[in-house]
């Protein structure tokens, strides 16, 4: 039974099948919210309410001609989308959704998995940089350097912000952190500053407005993805969507008490909590314009990092005096 459950976990929920379907749904939701905030309709034609539009886009891209530039590092150029997709899907398996026994450590839930997950979420950034670099196109190279420059801005605040609730819960295991906040719901409140910092940092990690600098189309055409087309671009887009889901899942686990109960309860909670975070990210995307790469670094170190440190201080004080 346990083996069957693990197979189910890997392949159906929250494994491959669910991640694919749900990430397309999240993309639809994001596009729809973004469009409604802009007084537009968003996708309407494909499927009911345009729900199948992201899948249609994916299938269309898969069928398109796949071009590898002559000057590009061909092996790296072709391998990167697949490696990237594998990395984010694997990181999706680390989310403690169900089938977790708090007493036993398992390959999908162990002490320190929050660090592993953060590390796995940093890899796509490196892959984007390499993708830009391997393309050997002026626009791609600039996009690639922008990816790395931004990394120096948001990565530290994101780590600090995610680690402070872990500190309060006294565990480096996501399942335990989530269980701790489910047992003490009021302790979610002191982490609000960290939650704000993490939401903004995740927005930057996902390269969405106001941080869509690496592929700012009016400046550097497609940025990192200028030379990518067809299947490889489809994989990259799917990878970004899954990264979106996993990041939202991480924030929901660490800040919003995770997903307790059995299969069904976990399923409903996962959808509600991640959609809440996706909604926040969509609103943020709609109400801001794109800033410059130097402004990202300044903003991150002037505001995000001090706020994250403040959050750590609050957590340490609470832990010292109240618990």
């Amino acid at each position, binding site marked *: 039974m346990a083996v069957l459950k693990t197979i189910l976990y890997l392949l159906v929920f929250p494994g491959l099948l669910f991640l694919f379907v749900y990430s397309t749904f999240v993309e639809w939701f994001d596009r729809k919210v973004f469009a409604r*905030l*802009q*007084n*537009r309709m968003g996708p309407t034609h494909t499927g009911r309410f345009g729900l199948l539009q992201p899948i249609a886009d994916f299938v269309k891209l898969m069928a398109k001609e796949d071009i590898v530039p002559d000057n590009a590092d061909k092996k790296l150029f072709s391998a990167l989308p697949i490696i990237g997709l594998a990395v984010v899907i694997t990181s999706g398996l680390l989310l403690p959704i169900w089938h977790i026994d708090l007493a036993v450590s398992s390959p999908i839930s162990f002490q320190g998995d929050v660090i592993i997950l953060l590390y796995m979420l940093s890899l796509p950034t490196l892959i984007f940089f390499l993708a830009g670099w391997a393309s050997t196109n*002026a*626009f791609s190279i*600039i996009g690639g*350097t922008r990816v790395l420059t931004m990394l120096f801005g948001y990565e530290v605040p994101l780590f600090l912000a995610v680690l402070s609730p872990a500190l309060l819960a006294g565990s480096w295991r996501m399942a335990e952190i989530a269980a701790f906040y489910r047992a003490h719901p009021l302790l979610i409140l002191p982490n609000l500053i960290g939650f704000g910092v993490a939401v903004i940092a995740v927005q930057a990690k996902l390269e969405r*407005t*106001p941080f*869509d*600098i690496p592929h*700012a*189309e*009016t*400046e*550097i*055409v497609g940025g990192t993805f200028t030379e990518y087309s067809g299947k490889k671009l489809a994989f990259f887009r799917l990878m970004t969507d899954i990264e979106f889901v996993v990041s939202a899942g991480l924030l929901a686990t660490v800040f919003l008490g995770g997903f307790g109960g059995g299969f069904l309860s976990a399923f409903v909670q996962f959808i509600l909590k991640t959609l809440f975070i996706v909604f926040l990210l969509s609103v943020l995307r*709609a*109400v*801001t*314009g*794109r*800033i*410059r*790469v*130097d*402004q990202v670094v300044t903003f991150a170190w002037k505001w995000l990092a001090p706020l994250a440190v403040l959050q750590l201080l609050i957590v340490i004080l609470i832990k010292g005096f109240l618990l």
Partner: protein
Amino acid sequence: MKFNIPIGPQHPALKEPISIRLTVEGEVIQDADLRLGYNHRGMEKLAEEKSYIQNIYLTERICGICSHSHSTCFVQGVEKLMEIEPPRRGIYLRYLVGELERVHSHLLWLGVAGHEAGFDTFFMYTWRDREIVMDLLEMISGNRVHYAINTVGGVRRDVDEALRKKILDGLAILRTRSEYYLKIGASEPTFVGRLAGVGRLTKQQAMDLCATGPTAKASGVALDVRKNDPHAFYDEVDFDVITADSCDVLGRTVVRIKEVLESYKICEQILAKLPDGPIAVKAPRKAKPNEVVSRYEAPRGENIHYIVSNGTDKPERLKVRAPTLGNYVATIEMLRHGFIADVPLIFAAIDPCVCCAERSVELIDGKSGKERILRFSDLRRMANERFRTLPLQRNVAWPF
């Protein structure tokens, strides 16, 4: 590491073909170079073969956004050549359309600026409200883009009382919306962060480099044909020339929004004082030999048409200087030492209308990179020569 980045002739930030070549070091632009000539249209030559009436519709097609500016500028000149004076009502209606066109052009620009700055929500909102003024223009003239309302000696369509009320209602909505955009444009932190201090052009530079329109106004140069050289009825209405002293893209944005508010003021005054009477006088077909320079404050700056008549019903020569051309030199200066991220914004901030300004053909040798500017007659001679010296091809199959 220094390398060259081509922006254009095809680039997502550019709606029309022009080439900006940047030498960058990291993200900072060291040098910029502007190449024109991707869009030769032969309009001036064509104008010499068409009658004055036909030319109104030709000049209207110089630009798709400030179409009325070009036809008005042309018609003003032709009326001077023919020594006729259009009736007051005709003049008022002509410039009513002109001011509404300024509103639509500036709202369009605001959306483009929002898009270039990655602020797509702003773009969607301004373009939604631009529909109101487009609808008004359609109600007045019957067309949304090329109004075709000008004719030599007046205008072609009248405005009745019901329409007058509709225009006033539309203006009231537009005014509240524009005030909201002024608030957003001057306060949304990411937007202001992108625009403030970008593309600096000092007052002295603006004057030296002959900048025009909102580009000059944002550098504190109160350059406005409507005020400096009041043509038609502009000395009878009350309005201000908007200037800003911030000398950057933010200033150009604020100038444009405030200019839109001034245009509402002018439109309301026009509608309030609209005189009775005919809308046009009958114009002769021919004009005596003479020459005239006609100036008009287009949304992008000063538009100049130089017309020479020779006693027939066709002009001897028509020379058009679109305002965009006047701003190119200043653009190079603004781009220098900026960031790559700011290129689209700086270039968009002059509100470029490339195809208005394109006039000549430049040939660049693919191997040596040598450049030559040629006249049309030279091009024809070269083509003939090449055809004559071409080795005779035998056994060539007829393709069809």
